[in-house]
């Protein structure tokens, strides 16, 4: 299965900004931040089309997102994921003594994930965040 080695960028989008006002647990918010914008040529190389699920992995983990044809192309080998709980799953917490983790420009890998599903926020919290004290 083809894999794309890419540079991962995160950032704000106007949809992420407006949909979060409907509540973080709303379906609208989930749809606005569980996307991965990919260059159309890269999508062809990966063999994915609009709205197919893809797995985006970094050295900190992986997450399933929805592939979206980037309206900001051309940007070969660069992918964009809006800020949010899903993007945070694959961010590294190392700050190299600056207090700021590298949230833009991380090396990442993208591949098809047709069998996988995008987690809801509650599923994500259950799966990845465990409380250890009561």
């Amino acid at each position, binding site marked *: 299965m083809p894999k794309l080695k890419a*540079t991962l*960028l*995160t*950032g*704000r*989008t*106007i949809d992420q*900004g*407006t*949909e979060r*006002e*409907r*509540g*973080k*647990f*709303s379906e609208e918010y989930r749809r606005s931040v569980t996307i991965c914008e990919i260059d159309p040529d890269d999508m062809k190389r990966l063999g994915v089309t609009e709205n197919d699920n893809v797995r985006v992995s970094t050295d*900190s*983990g992986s997450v399933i997102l929805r592939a979206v044809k*980037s309206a*900001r*192309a*051309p*940007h070969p080998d*660069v992918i*964009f994921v809006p*800020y*949010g*709980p899903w993007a*945070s*799953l*694959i*961010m*590294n*917490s*190392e*700050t*190299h*003594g*600056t*207090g*700021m*983790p*590298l*949230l*833009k*420009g991380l090396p990442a890998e993208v591949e098809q994930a047709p069998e996988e599903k995008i987690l809801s*926020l509650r599923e994500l*919290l259950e799966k*990845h*965040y*465990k*409380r*250890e*004290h*009561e």
Partner: protein
Amino acid sequence: MTVISHITCPVCGDFCDDIEVTVEDNVITDVKNACAVGAARFLNYATHRRTKPLIRKDGELVEASLDEAIRKSAEILADATYPLLFGWSSTSCEATRVGLELAEEVGGVIDNTSTICHGPSILGIQDIGISSCTLGQLRHRADLIFYWGSNPWDAHPRHIERYTMFTEGRFQRSTWRKYVSRLGGTVTEKRLQRTANLLLDHHPPTPIETGQGLPYTMFQKKRKMVVADVRKTRTAEAADYFLQVEPNRDYELLQAFRMLIRDGELDVEEVAGVPVELLEEVADVMIGCELGVFFFGLGLTMSEGRHRNIDAALSLVRDLNQYTKFLIMPMRGHFNVTGANVVFTWQTGYPFAVDLSQGFPRYNPGETSTIDILRRRESDAALVIGSDPLAHFPKKTAQNLIKNPLIAIDPELTPTTLMADVVIPPAYVGIEAEGTAYRMDHVPLPLKKIVDPPETCLSDEEILRRILNEVRRIRRKLN
């Protein structure tokens, strides 16, 4: 029905102060002048808010009285040896002031969201210094607007309209008409191209102009906009010049500009993916402007180089001031993140990441900053106000945050409030409670109270004051 005007918008760092809202029976029914995000906040804030405090009992969050929630919060903080007090960018300066008093009382670390936003900018400014101004000055006088690693179209939707390109200043005209006619041209061009591609079946589509050729506005004597970014954002589409920099190579490009401005020659074809020919053009425009401004965003602070990128940007602006007047300003994210920095500095001497565990303020980002403290799992409790670290911190740090008792002061249901031990929903500052906040250019403006809060919701300031009093009572009892 009451119409209230001159409302400030408690969303982004632009902190627009011309919002008009219509209120009927204590409900906001209409909003004018706000951007999509601002309007969504005013119209939707009440639809998914909580009104009752919650305390975790036997693993479940259950409703509790406000007194009970405050007592529990105070106990958590009084018991902790190294608590972390985080957030502060979406609350009032008055609340932050009480927060600092609380941090001193409990001997913890207090940090605001700039730690994971413009923290590197602050480090850069402390190294180099900053030549800045207010947005009003720029609105009337700036004839060159530079956005680097910043996409106001999505993150500060009214910035271009209110302060830069599309505003009618006293000495500078708006370029809105030019943009609209160009947009029309681009749309027609794309349609023609699509039709041609359909007619000439199987021919590969002609590549769309990336904007890196020589700009057509070269000799135009009007306000100009330059955008440097890793993708051609909507902001970049509105620009006269667009420099598509390769990810993580901003520092290189900034230093190349510094070299060109000092009459140096670049013995290469391109720097960071941008042709040197274009860089030379833009450098000429920068030197030739009457008043330029350099707005920079998280594209510089969150990528490789962090504060060193900011050092280079600040130095570039300093160099430019040998030829013309040039100013620089960070595009701050939350409406009062600047205020949080101001109040922190006025109270402790440092703008963020302040450690008060030894009885006096210490500041050492990388050591006393939230992400590092959580990554090393040093804190043993946390209070989060007006922020959602569980959604926005890297996974490992967020996981460590919920390994210890967590207090969340937030009116919304967020991942952080859902995982907290105590949740206290306050009155929404700027909608249900008043206060003061600082716009991104350090201009303080009032946050207004438009509607009455639910009876069970106090202001952030009042909640923190009551927690502080309770902590003091517990400590007196122990002593």
